């Protein structure tokens, strides 16, 4: 290009011929107008999206900073939004941890047959997105004679149990030293007093750092707005667990806290046809889970990472 036309500094300081300036200014104005129109066009999708977002949600505080009144109003708003968006009448509550309870979960690898009934029960109980078939539980088919995950396989389709295999369901290990909680930049996920690691779905910014940090593939992201037919929605919901999650936030297993904090067992346990799952209070010396930990050959997954899971695997014989 000819360099002589490209000298901003001296030309602008000196008075320019009147006509040149006017034409140039007119061109600039035209360019700016065109640019502004193109800009408006470009952001049209985001403008239509913001129309669906409520100001109340935008300004909502962190769960642990809410007064009980504020939380009541928020849960009422979420119920109304579920009615509006999904056509379902649901009841959202705030289930709190019980005094003197720390949950533990143990799974008997000797009798698990890999039927994936637990994963299916989780899908239904926790109001997961239907098209993706999401679940908090993945069942690995493992080669007998090794516990090397690399030789495991989740995509098996043959009848189970296969004689050469054993089966290892994996879900959130509710670690006592959870890497996912440490990495969260906005404190949107934390460990509750009963040991359950929870997420405030209305505070999470969706950076997915926790998903990268978790060594157990326990966390899921809502890549789009979950789709569930109204008649399939589980109406018994809690703010920190199975209420329908918004688009663009993380979610995870909560040991079904809307059930377990009210004296019931997790949905995955109730669905298990072989009784491989044991759930209970680690602080109660007479609980079944304590009996398992004391008497069985127990191990935790990836112990070398120092995450201290509250989820245990054991063998019978």
């Amino acid at each position, binding site marked *: *290009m*000819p*360099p002589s*036309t*490209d000298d*901003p*500094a001296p*030309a*602008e300081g000196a008075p320019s011929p009147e006509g040149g300036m006017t034409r140039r200014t007119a061109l600039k104005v035209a360019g700016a107008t065109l*640019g502004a129109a*193109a800009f408006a*066009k*470009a*952001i049209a*999708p*985001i403008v239509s999206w*913001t129309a669906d*977002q409520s100001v109340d949600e*935008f300004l909502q505080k962190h769960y642990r900073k809410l007064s009980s009144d504020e939380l009541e109003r928020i849960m009422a708003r979420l119920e109304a939004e579920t009615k509006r968006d999904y056509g379902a009448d649901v009841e959202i509550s705030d289930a709190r941890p019980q005094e003197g309870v720390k949950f533990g979960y143990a799974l008997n690898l000797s009798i698990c047959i890999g039927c994936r009934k637990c994963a299916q029960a989780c899908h239904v109980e926790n109001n997961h997105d239907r098209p993706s078939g999401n679940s908090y539980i*993945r069942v*690995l088919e493992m080669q007998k004679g090794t516990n*090397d*995950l*690399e030789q*495991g396989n*989740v995509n098996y389709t043959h009848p189970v149990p296969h004689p050469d295999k054993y089966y290892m369901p*994996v879900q959130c290990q509710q670690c006592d030293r959870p*890497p996912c909680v*440490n*990495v969260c*930049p*906005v*404190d*949107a996920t934390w460990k509750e007093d009963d040991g359950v690691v929870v997420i405030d779905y209305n*505070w*999470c*910014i*969706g*950076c*997915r750092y926790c*998903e*990268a940090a*978790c*060594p*157990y*593939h326990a*966390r*899921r*992201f*809502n*890549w*789009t*707005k979950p789709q569930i037919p109204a008649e399939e929605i589980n109406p018994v919901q809690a703010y920190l667990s199975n209420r329908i999650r918004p*688009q*663009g*936030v993380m979610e995870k297993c909560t040991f079904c806290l809307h059930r377990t904090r009210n004296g019931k067992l997790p949905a995955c346990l109730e669905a298990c046809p072989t009784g491989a799952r044991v759930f209970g209070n680690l602080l109660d010396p007479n609980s079944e889970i304590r009996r398992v930990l004391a008497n069985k050959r127990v191990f935790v997954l*990836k112990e070398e*990472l*120092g*995450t201290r899971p509250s989820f245990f695997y054991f063998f019978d014989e």
Partner: protein
Amino acid sequence: MTPATPVSPSAPVSHPTARGHFAGYLRFLWRVIVDATDGSGWFYAWMTLLTAVALVGLNAWSTQVRDGMIVTAMTDHVSWGLYIANFTFMVGLAAGGVMMVIPAYLYHDEEMHDVVIVGEMLAIAAIAMCIAFVVVDLGRPDRFWHIIPGLGEFNWPVSMLTWDVIVLNGYLALNLHICGYLLYMRFLGRRPEPRWYVPFVFLSIIWAVSIHTVTAFLYCGLGGRPFWNTALLAPRFLASAFVSGPAFIIVALHVLRRFGRVHIGDRPVAILANIMRVTILINLLMVASEVFTEFYSGSSHTAAARYLYFGLHGADGLVPWIWTSVIFGVVAAVLLLRPGVAKHPAQLTVACVLAFVAVWIEKGMGLIIPGFIPSTLHEVVEYAPSVIEWQISAGIWAFGLLVYTVALKIGLPILAGPRGLEATGTPWKKAG
């Protein structure tokens, strides 16, 4: 070297009064806007092209926010992709911009002084791009305020991401201050006072190391991802940053010489080429060292490296990427090691472009994606960016180049630096 006249702050040109100062600053800002939007037909064509690409990216991002990140190719297995890959690379480029500053201020190199602002402006544009790449990776950008200290919940000091927020924004502020101060003094026709910018320059040198170290800690602090969980990650980040930064600046200096109508001596390019000669070898050494450790031991933790370099269980999506990077890196190193390479602009430019692309792959797709493949439960789910991801990424690159072009356009008059001011005696504009 800092300006010859030591402490005496007063330059030959008159001082504005306190009241006149504000009006003067407004005139300065107006002048900046005029300079940034005025130029030749080529300039307008270039800016229009960049604006168009940036708008395509903006539209794609807008769609992504509305429909969800399902429009990307990311999954729960590979949960970071092209955006975070580019983010990681851009942090390196921002840190690498400081390679201009070190010889200029630490070793009092006069000619480097003249072009140091080219590197500082690169840092500004690169950090702007970093922030953009993080924002487009958020599932809920509307909740961005949650991470602002005081307004939201800032999980500092436990979360490394909060450290990254601090160091990146601090680095941006430092470079904005240095560039802005030098420009304003030039506008006033005054000599910049060393105490108002030299301490910040030295701080920015240390800070540049911190931004890339902290960004490496984001990844290497994750025990569940063996591919990232290596102490060599931060040193490797720095070595590669000091390849990509000088490479970009050398090409930028060549372009400025051709189109910018500013005199740029041969020395800055020669020094930068010499820096690259060393850093590119250190970088290759570190790659070789990691490859050896991964493959010689043969433990099951090497599955990610096997996937990256050779493919795993028939999945080999990254193999062409990484070998392109390796070959480009080696060829660039050979070209750079030839004697007198700085005297052959064409050859040097080719070497710089090859080195730049090599690092972009190595610190981008070649670093982020294998962290997720195989997944923590050893599932192999591959990833290739979707059209929307490419559009958004191209849009951010165009936006970054817009910022850089405008910054240089404004900064060209002070490229001559304090020394040039003394020599020519023609201030940008007489004050008052």
